[in-house]
C-alpha cells in the first residue's frame, strides 16, 4: 500500500515541477520539451505479460519470499498469500501486527509441531484401533480409508472427497476449510488433490488450475487480458495502479477496469458512456435485471436465496437492496427510505440532444482515426520511394513519429468528448455551481479546440504526397511535422493538466482519477523473466 502512495506523490511532484517550468521559462520551448521527455520517462510502468506457461514462475517469487521468511511449505504460503490477495508487504505487516499464531489462526493455516507424527499417523492409529466413526456419514470405517487433516479432524475419504468436489465446483478451491463445525483450518492441497483425483481426475486438474489462477484473480497487481477470443495472457504491473497497458497480443486496455483504453475519461465515465452507447443485448439486460455487482470484487452476483443478506464468492457480504457492504448500515436496514432524486426530473429532450452532440464528435474522431490508420501503409510506401531518391537526409523517423503522435492525440481527442459529456453534465451536478461549471467548461473547450485544430493540421501534413515533392519542400514539410508534433504533444499534456488539476482536482465528494498522459504511448508488456531463486 505504502508503495503506491509514494509513487503517486512522486507523480504529483513531477507535475508541479513541470508547472513551474512552464511559468518561469515558458518562452523557451526547447527547455520545456526536454523536461517533458524526462517526465514521461519517469512515469513509465513496468508491465509483464504472464502466459499460461509462465504463470507458475510468476508467482514463484512471491511464494518463495513468504516461504523463506516464515519457513513454511508452499501450500501454507499460498493460503496466506491468497488471504492477503498476493500482497507480500501487507502479509508481512499483518504478521508484525498480529503475530504468527493469530495470523495463522485467522487465515486457517495449521502447522503441525511434530512432522513425523503426520507420516506415522495412519500406522500408529491403526495400531490402536482399526476403525473410526465418520461423523458425516455416521459410518464406522477402517482407518486406512479415513484422512486426518492438519487440524486433527478425521473423516472418511468418501465424505472428504464429496466435500472437496462440492467446494471446487462451487468455485471455492482457494480456501476449502475442514468439515468440522467452526474449524477454520484450510485443508492441505496435497490431500485434496490425492482424494479428488481418484474420483474425478479432470476436476483435480481444474483444482490445480484454480489455485494457480488465484495469482491472477485475487491479485490487484495482475489482470487477465480482456481480449476476445482470449489470448491466454495476464498482465502484471509493478508500481502504478492506474494506467493503460498493451498486452503482448496487441490489445490496449485500461488496467483498472479492463475495458478499452479510455483516458482521459475516468473508468466510471467510460463505463457510463459505453453502457449508453451499447446496444442493450439480452445478456446485458439479464445481468442488469438479475445481478448486482459485489462492492468488493465488482463481479455480478446473482441472488439464489430468499434472504437479502448476500454473500459474494469472494467472501464479501452485502445488502441486496442497496448493494452496500457495511454491516447493514450500523443498526438496521435504512435503504428502504425513499430519497427524492432531483436529477430525474430533467428535460429528456435536451438531454438527448446534448448526448448526440458529444457522441457525434466522439465518433467522428474515432472514424478519422480509422481512416488515418490506413496512412501507415501509404506512409511506408512514400518513405521507400523517398529513400530510393538520392537526397541529403536519409532519416525518416520524423514521419513515423509524427504518425504515432497523430494516433495518440486522435485517441485523446476522441475520448475527451465522453469526458466532457459527464464532466459538465449531471453526475457532478452538486459539486460545482452553475457559474463555476460554465467557466470550467470554457477553459476545457478552449484547450480541446486548440488541440483539435493542431491535430487536423498535423493530419493534413502527414497526408501530403511528399514522395512527389522536390527536396527542399520535403525539408520544409519535415520541419512542419516535427513542429506540429511537438506542439500537439504539449497541447495534449496541457489538456491533461487542465483535466487533472482544474477539473477533476476540484471535485471534493467524488474522486475520479484517470490514467496519466503517456507522451511516448502505452507501455507494452514484456515477458516474465524467470526469477533467480529457481
Amino acid at each position, binding site marked *: 500500500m505504502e508503495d503506491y502512495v509514494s509513487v503517486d506523490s512522486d507523480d504529483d511532484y513531477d507535475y508541479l515541477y513541470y508547472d513551474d517550468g512552464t511559468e518561469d521559462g515558458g518562452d523557451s520551448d526547447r527547455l520545456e520539451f526536454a523536461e517533458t521527455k524526462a517526465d514521461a520517462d519517469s512515469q513509465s510502468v513496468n508491465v509483464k505479460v504472464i502466459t499460461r506457461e509462465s504463470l507458475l514462475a510468476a508467482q514463484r517469487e512471491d511464494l518463495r519470499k513468504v516461504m523463506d521468511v516464515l519457513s513454511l511449505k508452499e501450500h501454507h504460503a499460498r493460503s496466506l498469500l491468497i488471504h492477503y490477495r498476493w500482497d507480500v508487504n501487507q502479509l508481512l505487516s499483518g504478521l508484525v501486527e498480529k503475530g504468527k499464531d493469530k495470523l495463522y489462526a485467522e487465515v486457517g493455516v495449521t502447522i503441525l509441531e511434530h512432522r513425523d507424527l503426520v507420516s506415522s499417523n495412519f500406522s500408529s492409529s491403526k495400531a490402536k484401533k482399526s476403525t473410526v466413526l465418520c461423523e458425516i456419514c455416521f459410518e464406522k470405517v477402517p482407518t486406512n480409508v479415513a484422512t486426518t487433516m492438519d487440524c486433527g479432524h478425521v473423516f472418511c475419504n468418501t465424505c472428504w472427497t464429496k466435500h472437496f468436489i462440492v467446494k471446487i465446483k462451487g468455485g471455492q478451491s482457494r480456501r476449502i476449510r475442514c*468439515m468440522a463445525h*467452526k474449524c477454520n483450518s484450510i485443508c492441505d492441497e496435497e490431500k485434496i488433490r490425492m482424494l479428488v483425483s481418484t474420483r474425478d481426475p479432470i476436476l483435480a486438474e481444474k483444482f490445480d488450475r484454480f489455485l494457480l489462477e488465484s495469482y491472477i484473480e485475487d491479485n490487484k497487481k495482475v489482470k487477465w487480458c480482456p481480449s476476445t477470443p482470449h489470448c491466454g495472457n495476464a498482465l502484471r504491473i509493478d508500481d502504478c495502479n492506474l494506467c493503460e497497458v498493451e498486452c503482448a497480443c496487441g490489445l490496449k486496455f485500461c488496467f483498472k477496469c479492463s475495458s478499452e483504453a479510455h483516458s482521459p475519461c475516468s473508468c466510471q465515465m467510460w463505463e457510463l458512456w459505453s453502457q449508453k452507447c451499447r446496444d442493450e443485448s439480452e445478456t446485458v439486460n439479464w445481468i442488469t435485471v438479475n445481478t448486482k455487482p459485489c462492492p468488493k470484487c465488482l463481479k455480478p452476483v446473482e441472488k439464489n436465496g*430468499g434472504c437479502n*443478506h448476500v454473500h459474494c464468492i469472494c467472501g464479501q457480504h452485502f445488502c441486496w437492496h442497496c448493494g452496500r457492504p457495511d454491516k447493514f448500515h450500523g*443498526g*438496521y436496514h*435504512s435503504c428502504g427510505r425513499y430519497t427524492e432524486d432531483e436529477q430525474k426530473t430533467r428535460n429528456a429532450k435536451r438531454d438527448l440532444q446534448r448526448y448526440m452532440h458529444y457522441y457525434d464528435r466522439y465518433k467522428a474522431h474515432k472514424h478519422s482515426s480509422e481512416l488515418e490508420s490506413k496512412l501507415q501503409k501509404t506512409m511506408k510506401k512514400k518513405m521507400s520511394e523517398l529513400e530510393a531518391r538520392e537526397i541529403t537526409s536519409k532519416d525518416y523517423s520524423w514521419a513515423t513519429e509524427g504518425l504515432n503522435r497523430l494516433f495518440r492525440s486522435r485517441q485523446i481527442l476522441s475520448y475527451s468528448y465522453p469526458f466532457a459529456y459527464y464532466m459538465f453534465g449531471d453526475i457532478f451536478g452538486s459539486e460545482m455551481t452553475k457559474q463555476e461549471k460554465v467557466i470550467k467548461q470554457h477553459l476545457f473547450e478552449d484547450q480541446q479546440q486548440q488541440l483539435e485544430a493542431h491535430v487536423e493540421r498535423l493530419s493534413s501534413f502527414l497526408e501530403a504526397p511528399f514522395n512527389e515533392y522536390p527536396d527542399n519542400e520535403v525539408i520544409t514539410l519535415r520541419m512542419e511535422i516535427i513542429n506540429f508534433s511537438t506542439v500537439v504533444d504539449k497541447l495534449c499534456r496541457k489538456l491533461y493538466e487542465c483535466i487533472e488539476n482544474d477539473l477533476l482536482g476540484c471535485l471534493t465528494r467524488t474522486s475520479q482519477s484517470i490514467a496519466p498522459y503517456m507522451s511516448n504511448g502505452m507501455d507494452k508488456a514484456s515477458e516474465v523473466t524467470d526469477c533467480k531463486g529457481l
Partner: protein
Amino acid sequence: MIDFARVQKELQECGKDVEGSGIRVAPKSDATLARLVGTIPGPIGTPYEGGVFQIDITLPDGYPFEPPKMQFSTKVWHPNISSQSGAICLDILKDQWSPALTLKTALLSVQALLSAPEPDDPQDAVVAKQYLKDYQTFISTARYWTETFAKTSSRGIEEKVQKLVEMGFPEAQARTTLESVGGDENLALEKLCSG
C-alpha cells in the same frame, strides 16, 4: 446426490430425543426424504413461548455437503426472519454451514436465534427497527403473532375467554374483544380495561 442413508440416521437420532429437545423432524410425504418438516417449540422466557413453529426443509442434492434450505412456514415476528416469507437469516444455513452439522443441530440454532435476535444483521427491516426503537411493542407483537399463528387456536380461545371471565368481564364482551384483537389475551385485557 443426497446421502439418504445419513438422513435416515439423522431422523432416527432426532426421534430418540424428542422428549428432551422438543425438536422433531419428519418427511413431508412418504415419497421422498428430500422435503421435510421440522418443528421447534418457542423458547421459554421469550414472546415465542408456548408456540410451536413449523419449518419447511428442502435438502439440496449436495446434502450434507451443502446446507439444507430452511424456511418458517409458521408466521413469526422476529428481526432475523422475514414476516412475509419466513426466510431465515442465519450464518450456519449459508457460508458457515459444515457437513458435521445435522438437521437437528441446525434447528437448535434456529431455536437459539428465536431467543437471541440479532437486530444489527436483520432479515426483516421493519421488525428490526421496531425491536431497536420500541422494544415493548415488539414484544407484544411477537407474542400476538405467536398466539395467533403458532398455537392451536380453537382450544386456546376458550381458555382465554374463561380467563377473562374469571377476571370479572362478561363472557360475550370478552369473546368479541378477543376476536377483535386476533386472540391476544394481553391486548384484549388492555382493551377491556381501557373501556
